């Protein structure tokens, strides 16, 4: 069983008291416990079981405008004593920073809303194995599938965030994640693809057969890929890649990147950075939403933010420290976004893929080719050639490149948004990118 609120609160208040006694003018503590159990299958047989019990505490102490932090997985009192003493000592020796402080008291969350993020159901490993047996049977039905791997993870966590201004709140959450990977082979190639499902509640995850079947389908259609020539072309990003592009946008509007001047979106507030039809929300109060929460990692209340309205950048993602530097109030985004999504576009998926006589449909990218400072984007990609709305053949060993400033302006969204993960996007089309191949 994951540690209860009372245990965590006791640890947190012990640390707050000790830090104060040793000279801290303010302190914040985050203490958490998570337990996860994983079962992995490979080629229809049990491959690995893994039980993981993680305790952890993070303590930040302030002496005036000086700050330092420690973290540990050892919550025994004698260890905490040593560490807090060390933390206070380091704090004293760290130079002042005028922007260091706990969040404004009036911004702290007053209540923890129940978004139904915790499912107490415990699935025994034998039942996980039974799910994976069905999944792998469905994944390996085709003769060309030469390898299957799958995994079922159940996780329960609990935490308390407390600070010396009297904030002391936390909540339990759970997750159930099942994933399926298939490897297929023909004379010319060997390919791999996947499908996964991730939910707070066991009953909401996809059924095993559907998951295995999808992974196999994704893999089989990639066999015998061709390389194509280099040209300027329209690219359609599958939802699973489109949501990654949305995450890059989010990191470029974090107050930290903005205040340091290391974002291509610096000084773009109230300017049009996307086409008119684009709206982006960050909504923390979605029932069972994986990113749902009442407060951020500093305790600041988190409300819905409209980040982009009709193409215009309306808000940054602000934490206390960087907010102070920018002379802006925290909007509860320390640690990032909650449930981030593009609002649906106007065009249906089928019309989107046939809107150009020739385009590329990208299902996977590799490499770390996003530069937030310059906005340059260049990654390796795998996908399909589409001609007149028809999938022609798989393609690989190409790169796609552009600059986000242009890509955002040339972006069109389909109307097929689904709330599967904490960041979600409809299918996305970007015109005028460059593909490099032969």
């Amino acid at each position, binding site marked *: 069983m994951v540690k209860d609120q009372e245990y965590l609160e006791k640890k947190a208040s012990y640390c707050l008291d000790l830090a104060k006694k040793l000279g801290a003018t303010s302190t914040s503590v985050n203490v958490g416990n998570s337990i996860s159990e994983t079962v992995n299958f490979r080629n229809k047989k049990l491959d690995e*079981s893994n039980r993981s*019990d993680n305790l*952890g505490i993070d303590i930040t102490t302030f002496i005036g405008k000086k700050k330092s*932090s420690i973290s540990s997985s050892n919550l025994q009192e004698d260890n905490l004593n040593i560490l807090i003493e*060390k933390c206070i000592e380091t704090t004293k020796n760290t130079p002042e920073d005028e922007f260091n402080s706990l969040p404004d008291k009036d911004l702290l969350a007053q209540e923890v809303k129940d978004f139904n993020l915790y499912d107490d159901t415990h699935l025994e490993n034998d039942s996980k194995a039974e799910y994976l047996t069905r999944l792998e049977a469905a994944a390996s039905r085709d003769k060309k599938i030469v390898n299957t791997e799958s995994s079922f993870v159940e996780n329960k966590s609990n935490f308390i965030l407390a600070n010396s201004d009297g904030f002391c709140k936390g909540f339990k959450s759970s997750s159930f994640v099942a994933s399926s990977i298939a490897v297929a082979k023909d004379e010319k190639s060997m390919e791999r693809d996947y499908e996964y499902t991730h939910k707070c509640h066991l009953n909401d995850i996809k059924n095993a057969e559907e998951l295995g079947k999808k992974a196999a389908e994704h893999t089989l259609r990639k066999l015998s890929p061709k390389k194509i020539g280099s040209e300027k072309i329209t690219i359609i990003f599958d939802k699973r890649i489109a949501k990654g592009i949305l995450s890059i946008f989010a990191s470029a509007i974090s107050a930290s990147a903005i205040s340091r*001047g290391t974002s291509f979106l610096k000084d773009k507030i109230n300017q049009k950075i996307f086409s008119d039809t684009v709206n982006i929300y960050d909504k923390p109060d979605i029932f069972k939403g994986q990113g749902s929460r009442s407060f951020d990692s500093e305790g600041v209340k988190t409300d819905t933010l409209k980040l982009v309205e009709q193409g215009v950048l309306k808000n940054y993602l602000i934490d206390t420290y960087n907010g102070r530097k920018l002379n802006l109030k925290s909007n509860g985004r320390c640690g990032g976004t909650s449930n981030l999504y593009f609002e649906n576009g106007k065009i249906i998926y089928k019309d989107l893929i046939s809107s150009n006589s020739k385009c590329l449909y990208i299902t996977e990218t590799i490499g770390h080719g996003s530069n937030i400072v310059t906005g340059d984007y260049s990654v390796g990609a795998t996908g399909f050639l589409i001609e007149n709305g028809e999938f022609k053949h798989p393609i690989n060993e190409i790169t796609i490149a552009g600059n986000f400033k242009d890509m955002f302006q040339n972006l069109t969204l389909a109307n097929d948004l689904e709330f599967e993960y904490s960041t979600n996007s409809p299918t996305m089309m970007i015109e005028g990118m460059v593909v490099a191949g032969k």
Partner: protein
Amino acid sequence: MSNFFDKSDLNRNEAETVVSDTLKKCDDGELYLENSKSESILLDDNKIKKSSYNSDLGFGFRAVSGEIVAYSHSNEISKNSLKQSSENLKSTLKSAKGNYDYSIPKSNKKYYTNINPIEEKTLNSKIEILNKVNEYLRKKDNNVQQVTANFSGEQKSVEIIRSGGETLTDVRPLVRFNVSVMLEKNGRKESGVYGIGGRQSYDDYLTNDNWKNVCDEAFRIASVNLDSKPAPAGEMKVVLGPGWPAILIHEAIGHGLEGDFNRKKTSAFHNLMGQKVASEGVTIIDDGTLDNRRGSLTIDDEGTPTEKTVLIENGILKNFMQDRLNARLMKTRSTGSGRRENYRHIVLPRMRNTMMLSGKQTQDEMIKTVDRGIFAVSFGGGQVDITSGKFVFNCTEAYEIINGKIGSPIKGATLIGDGPSILKEVSMVGNDMMLDPGIGTCGKAGQGVPVGVAQPSILINKMTVGGTNL
């Protein structure tokens, strides 16, 4: 050296008994105990942004039977916790009937000393250097807009208790010093990053004001990029500089030669043992035994002493990198490549210091043969799709080559290639092998481990460059 049972209600004998009892019908397994202390001190935006210290303690208990691995880990080293883990392992391996392999090779060699680098240098002297870095770079040029510099250091003590009570220990220091600078000129921003490190104390890397060299190099890379023009797009010849660009070898070849992917036949190399996979003159080794290098280990995380493993010799595939599990299943021996990020993770076969050895040609000779291509000097991260063999990496410093001469710098572009065929496209191997400066971290299955790379300059006949200039 850590005493893991000091403050526990569990003593060593009791722990050994639980280990032997749990593993008696298993083929392999161990109790892995780990105590790590780490620090990070960061200067950013003219201020000390972060000074943090972490202490992490825990155990991971592993039982292996046939191909099945059961694993359980916890932060609490106690009777109760170990018993719970033992029961968890037994319930997974209900029908285990293996033969425990007691043999584990021995060696007295050590590739680094038992220091705690965090304690070897005072906080104040670390802060002083970070402030000097900031001042030095901002004075150096008016275009400097942002400076980030940090120290990160760690001491990790591990103890491995095997069935029968055999115990293996290691204490591993690791440090890194990193500088990143952003320049802005005429509205254009570019950044440059450089770092150094390894398994010694910070001051071993900072003698003679060496931090200045790190600053100068980060500044030089950023300056070059300020004048860069869009990279070309398409297939062309690529000359790679020596040292850090060997992450190409790491991504394109290294991962595909790890034992697990080959046992599972998901690597494009799984059926190529003994065959020609690279041009003549190409020899690649993976070496855990280089003194004080970032990727070096005295013993791996299963207790096997590390070694110098020849992967490809003069173009022929000779060995895969193995941990004990994959070695047993593939009927070979462990190469001391079993590694884990920490006690929370299972062991996987991983790279250590992966190196392509020197050939005979000079870099000039390579450049002269190129009519249209690029010269890549430094890279950011790379990634590989093991199954299709396709890999990428991102240039952070590169130049065009036109008619045998190095031309303008070009913007960061991704290069993409095919792992199994890329080494056959190597047509010249330089005489200038160089080790990287000690900054690499390799990710696999969600686990990051420190690694090193090395190579001479090489000429690759054909790679796809992912620029925007058609």
